[in-house]
């Protein structure tokens, strides 16, 4: 209940059918519809290291396997490692009596005290970039294997193309086609015969020697029945899966992990391909170039105070409405009828589907509609008539003069008015046999669209369905 925006009490119904709090909803200014994380397309915008806040271009990130070149995580507890410098005494090889001191570096974890020295890793002579990568022991075999299958698949593809162009009727149904990928290996014999076979393939194919099965398998270590186990010397699953390719079994095999980088995401409306959110490039900036959060474009509804409703009678519930835009907003509250809403949605879907096939140019891939729990457990009497929400004005807060007088408010509708906020009273009657009251309403308001390319009128009327969890019912 303590959440500033009452995320679990007041929810907006997104155009995809999901109920989400205003903080998780966007308003596409081109389609003029609500969108949410479920129905927009997400994109990786920029990549950065969360520790050193360095940007990584995507090509570099790919080469570095999405890991930072200079930061490390502890392989034991995944905390960030720090580089420690110490100096060591070394004796000159030609004259043992002369000693010199040299700076060396090692990695250490300030949380669990793991150090790269614990596991026998040599200290580095440079402060960063010295730690090498672990090598996959099967590297060479796998390299040949990949080449081998690539060549085979290439040959198979050419074979297919030839077959298709020659219009030959296949008289049988190949068994291997039926149950598997048509046998890449079964057709091995065809490869050398293919006139298209790329040169040099034969040599590559021959270099791959299949693995041999063996009749001997490593059993248990002899001392397993007698040796005490030190639990902390055996790695747990998290430690193993932190380096999936190697999966160390004992802590002596732990190797510093390069820090995984993170993306900044941008969001795009599926229907019009416009960005709904695009972050700034700089990793240390938390600002956005584009941010069409509903929070900035849809009047925010909050419950003024949380109450316990009485069963079977009308309860007064006060909500507040807040205008986040720099334009005055005229709004009205309308009843929300889930059945009618769903029907309208279905109709719209049909007509949209028709458009797509006719146009054929941009094909919108629609996600399946979500079904949310739209069951209302209370009736609400809404105040009739329109209200004007004053534009948001950051200087207004310092003004003391009474705003209320400027608007000729109907006291039946407006309970109070302060700067860009208005309070309204609703009368809620809980349905019988319910313990928690949920009401619905549609917020109809005039939105001033500031999009430069908007072809429609600058001021458009939007309908935003809202579900409010008013609170529990007492007997």
């Amino acid at each position, binding site marked *: 209940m303590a959440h500033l925006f009452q995320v679990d009490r007041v929810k907006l119904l997104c155009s995809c059918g999901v109920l989400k709090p205003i903080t998780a909803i966007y308003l596409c200014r081109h389609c003029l519809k609500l969108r949410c994380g479920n129905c927009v397309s997400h994109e990786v915008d920029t990549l950065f290291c969360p520790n050193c806040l360095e940007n990584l271009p995507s090509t570099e990130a790919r080469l570095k396997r999405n890991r930072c070149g200079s930061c490390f995580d502890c392989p034991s507890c995944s905390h960030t490692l720090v580089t420690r410098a110490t100096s060591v005494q070394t004796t000159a090889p030609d004259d043992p009596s002369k000693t010199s001191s040299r700076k060396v570096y090692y990695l250490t974890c300030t949380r669990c005290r793991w150090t790269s020295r614990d596991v026998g890793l040599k200290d580095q002579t440079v402060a960063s970039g010295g730690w090498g990568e672990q090598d996959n022991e099967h590297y060479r075999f796998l390299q040949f294997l990949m080449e081998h*299958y690539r060549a085979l*698949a290439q040959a198979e593809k050419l074979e297919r193309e030839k077959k298709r162009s020659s219009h030959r009727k296949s008289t049988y149904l190949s068994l291997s086609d039926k149950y598997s*990928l048509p046998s*890449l290996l079964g057709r091995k014999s065809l490869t050398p015969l293919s006139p298209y076979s790329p040169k040099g393939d034969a040599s590559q194919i021959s270099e791959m020697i299949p*693995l041999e*099965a063996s009749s001997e398998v490593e059993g248990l270590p002899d001392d397993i029945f007698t*040796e005490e*186990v030190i639990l902390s010397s055996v790695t747990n699953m998290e430690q193993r*899966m932190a380096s999936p390719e190697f999966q160390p079994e004992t802590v002596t095999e732990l190797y510093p992990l390069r820090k995984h980088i993170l993306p900044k995401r941008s969001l795009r409306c599926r229907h019009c391909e416009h960005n709904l959110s695009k972050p700034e490039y700089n990793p240390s900036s938390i600002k956005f170039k584009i941010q069409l959060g509903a929070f900035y474009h849809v009047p925010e509804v909050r419950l003024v105070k949380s109450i316990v409703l009485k069963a079977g009678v009308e309860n007064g519930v006060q909500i507040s409405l807040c205008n986040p835009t720099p334009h005055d907003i005229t709004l009205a509250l309308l009843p929300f009828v889930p059945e009618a809403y769903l029907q309208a949605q279905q109709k719209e879907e049909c007509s949209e589907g028709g458009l797509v096939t006719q146009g054929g140019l941009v094909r919108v891939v629609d996600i399946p509609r979500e079904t949310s729990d739209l069951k209302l457990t209370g009736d609400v009497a809404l105040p009739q008539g329109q209200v004007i929400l004053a534009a948001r004005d950051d200087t207004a807060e310092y003004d003391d003069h009474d705003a209320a007088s400027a608007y000729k408010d109907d006291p039946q509708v407006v309970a109070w008015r302060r700067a860009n906020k208005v309070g309204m009273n609703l009368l809620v009657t809980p349905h019988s046999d319910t313990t928690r009251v949920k009401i619905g309403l549609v917020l109809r308001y005039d939105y001033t669209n500031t999009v430069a390319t908007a072809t429609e009128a600058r001021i458009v009327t939007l309908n935003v369905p809202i579900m409010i969890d008013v609170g529990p019912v007492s007997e």
Partner: protein
Amino acid sequence: MPFYESISGIGLKNEKNITIVLDFGAAYTKAGFAGEYGPRVITKSEVKCRETGKMVPVFNYKGEDELRHHLVDFIHKLYFRSLLVNPKDRRVVVVEDLLGSSLVRDTIASVLFRHYEVLSVSFVPSYLVAVMTLGCSTALVLDLGHNEARIVPVYEEVPILNAWQALPLGAHSVHSSLSELLLDRAMTICEGGEEQRLSAVMDELPDKILEDITVRTCFASTVERSNRLQNNKYDRSIEPPPPPPSIQYPLSGSHIMTIPGTVREMAAEVLFEQDRDNLCIPTMILNAIISCPVDTRKALAENLLFIGGLAELKGLKHRILAEVRALVTTPAYSTLLPSISFKLHTPPAKDNYVSWLGGAILGATEAVVIRSVSREQYLSRGCVPDWCNLFYNTRDERDQKTL
């Protein structure tokens, strides 16, 4: 129009569009890029439930909608936390279990195509691609996964589906057996220092702890010791073998549990105890071989491949092989499988991502282009081809007609 068609234009070697390879498991999901030698991430198959906010297994679902929500959120995490590439207009290879549910398969396809707008999806059979990692074409694949142990023999690149075997003997069954044994035998030391039975302190152990104990302390014992332990159960005069050392295991809330050595040794015995139908892992292997055509049996027995995370359990591979060799000399099998020898492969990967690796090898070839379903094809048809759906199997003939 042929359903499978090569989509030219976007080459596989085009670095920007490297294919994604996904292997969804009941317990762990492996994800990475085609052409690489290991997955980028092996993560627990868990998502935050949209209603309760608690972490729940992806493949625990009450209906299609819930499964879809789980998959949308889970795949989002894979792309935007681990792979860090745009899903849109990129190919995906999904390593699938031939014996898996078609609802899961259809939902995966729907989520990838509709939510993530991927360029194409190809489902590749896990058993087949696992064999590809060996560079050979024949092997009897035993997948020791989380919920089940499954066998599909692959002969000359063709999965022999009518010989499949599956039993609910996966890591999960080891965990349950461990839990039972611990509640029966383990002691705990509380803060005050007094000793109590574990069952007096708690009545069940969380899955995470059971997995941790299994992974870090348990092992599969030898045949000889196991027999002595069994005999001791029925006849107390037979000496049980001296138990392996016990282990002090810290539990939450300042309890320290003492795991008896015998528990460490016996947790994995469930895999070898024959059930009511006299079935266990060794019998599964022999039954699978027997269900295969006679002329394939020798080759299959000499090319066993054990995959799946449970195969990492210390001593397990050795034990299975020993049990199989002993079992084949018993009257039930000796006449059917005379003079047969067994050999085991060591895959060029950790056991739990062998299938993923196979998918990554195949995903780096043109083969994946030819056998994938493109987004256009999927959207116009609304489903993915299924290997058991004849509509798609008679493809060559239909190709001819449309030409």
